[in-house]
């Protein structure tokens, strides 16, 4: 069940010049989120900015939720000044989350940029797993330690070659497909990142007959299905990213 609740800021610290880690403790009992779900966070109590902002949760611990956020505009610019102890307004958890299959399919997770938050929420909960993770520069890669500790096999790239392989995640995906032909028919992809990246991955997946899911983003006013603002085109007509999504099968999305 989703809730409208207040939370206390436990920590809010910069991982690098652009990306912050926020840990909050809800002041009341809230539903435990499942991988891929998100919350709406109010950056300020004034009406400018007005709307809450959507953020995937990264990790959940006993009555604690962690987020990873990049500084973009007004809202995130204010969030980075959240002092420890501040009481903030939130709603959530929202979204359908990643569908997890209790069979022998092998999950391949793909994250671009801050998409890593959503992807890691799933990664931590899986056993056998692969991860492809890309960012523009080494500076924008985060939580590498965490990924290393998580036990899966992972591949990292940066556009400028400052860490891992040079290039984009879709190149790594092609490499992965060629080098894992033995298992590829069991692989199911979960991807989160910028739209062009998701589009390209879904194309490669379909060429190789791999099933997969993408977590989409759209401007959101409510987060819980009321405003119809977050619609995306799918083969079933417009669907709400916040309600029928955020996670859609590749095959359903009209890019």
């Amino acid at each position, binding site marked *: 069940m989703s809730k409208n609740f207040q939370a206390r800021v436990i920590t809010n610290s910069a991982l690098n010049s652009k990306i912050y880690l926020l840990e909050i403790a809800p002041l009341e009992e809230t539903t435990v989120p499942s991988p891929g779900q998100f919350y709406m966070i109010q950056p300020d109590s004034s009406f*400018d900015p007005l709307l809450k902002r959507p953020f995937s949760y990264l990790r959940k611990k006993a009555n604690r939720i962690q987020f990873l956020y990049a500084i973009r505009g007004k809202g995130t610019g204010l969030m980075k000044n959240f002092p420890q102890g501040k009481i903030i307004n939130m709603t959530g958890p929202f979204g359908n989350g990643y569908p997890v299959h209790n069979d022998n399919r092998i999950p391949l997770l793909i994250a671009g940029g801050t998409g890593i938050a959503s992807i890691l929420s799933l990664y931590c909960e899986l056993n056998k797993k692969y991860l492809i993770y890309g960012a523009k520069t080494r500076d924008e890669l985060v939580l590498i330690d965490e990924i290393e500790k998580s036990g899966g096999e992972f591949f990292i790239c940066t556009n400028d070659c400052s860490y891992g392989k040079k290039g984009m995640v879709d190149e790594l995906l092609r490499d992965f497909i060629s080098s894992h032909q033995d298992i590829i028919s069991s692989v199911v992809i979960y991807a989160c990142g910028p739209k062009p990246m998701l589009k390209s991955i879904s194309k490669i997946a379909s060429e190789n007959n791999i099933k997969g899911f993408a977590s989409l983003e759209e401007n959101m006013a409510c987060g819980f299905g009321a405003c119809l603002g977050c619609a*995306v085109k799918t083969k079933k007509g417009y669907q709400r990213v916040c309600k029928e999504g955020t996670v859609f099968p590749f095959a359903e999305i009209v890019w």
Partner: protein
Amino acid sequence: MDNLNLSVNIGKLKLKNPVMTASGTFGYAREYSEFIDLNRLGAIVVKGISLKPMEGNPPPRICETPCGMLNAIGLQNVGLKNFLKEKLPFLKTLNTKFIVNILGNSISDYVKLSKSLEDSGIEAIELNVSCPNVKKGGISFGTNDKMLAKLISKVRQSAQRITLITKLSPNVSNIPLFAKIAEDSGSDAISLINTIPALAVDIETWKPRLANITGGLSGPAIKPIALRMVWEAAKTVKIPVIGIGGIMNANDAIEFLLAGATAIQVGTGNFVNPCATIDIIDGIESYLKRKSIDDIKNIIGGINGNCTGDNSDN
């Protein structure tokens, strides 16, 4: 002060309190059932219904502006038939009033909708007249005095028992004129304002921030404009006026009541705080208690001095 009277009447509808939800911001009510006790609401206005389902506009459909937001949802809705089949049963389980907002592109659309709804036992409808009349070159019903008069009269004729609320467009020079037309043509109440047409531009991509180019501005930014229009309308007509526009909290709601609104609707405020309506009901109660006023009717129109509330301790 134990028997605080918050009830107000809108046409034949008796509301337990003056706090309603604004069409298009409350879905078909179920979306909010996780957050609030829907039965506490004065009334629920559901997302605008057309004869046939409408798929709406391509994304992006919304964006934020200073103290406001733009939307160009494109009137996406399930259509009359699905509404009656899929949404109405849930609404009927609630112990509160609900009002069906309707829209069309011709007078006959509105007439058919209101007739069907009356026949289905719906107690009240709200006419969204900010829609283009396709037969008349797309001019909005709500900005043309003659078209508006004809539209309301025809709807009134075809659905005589239903409580008929006309939702005025803010996009006119002369609100009193349109308020009067609504009254004279047979509306039981008027509600205002709908969103104000607006634009936002992305200076990096050189594109409008909405795929539809323009959208409707709502939220606190429009509150002073809405208040002025409600005040002008309430001075002009005898039927109840429902105030809408940027209401975020109880203080905002009270401003509208003082300006002459008999009830109010909360729109964008629901997105920011899904419990906004309940907080507003509670806040109005506390305000009345603090002011030792036992009936909400005693503050309605208070700025014109034509209310009977004891206001002497200010």
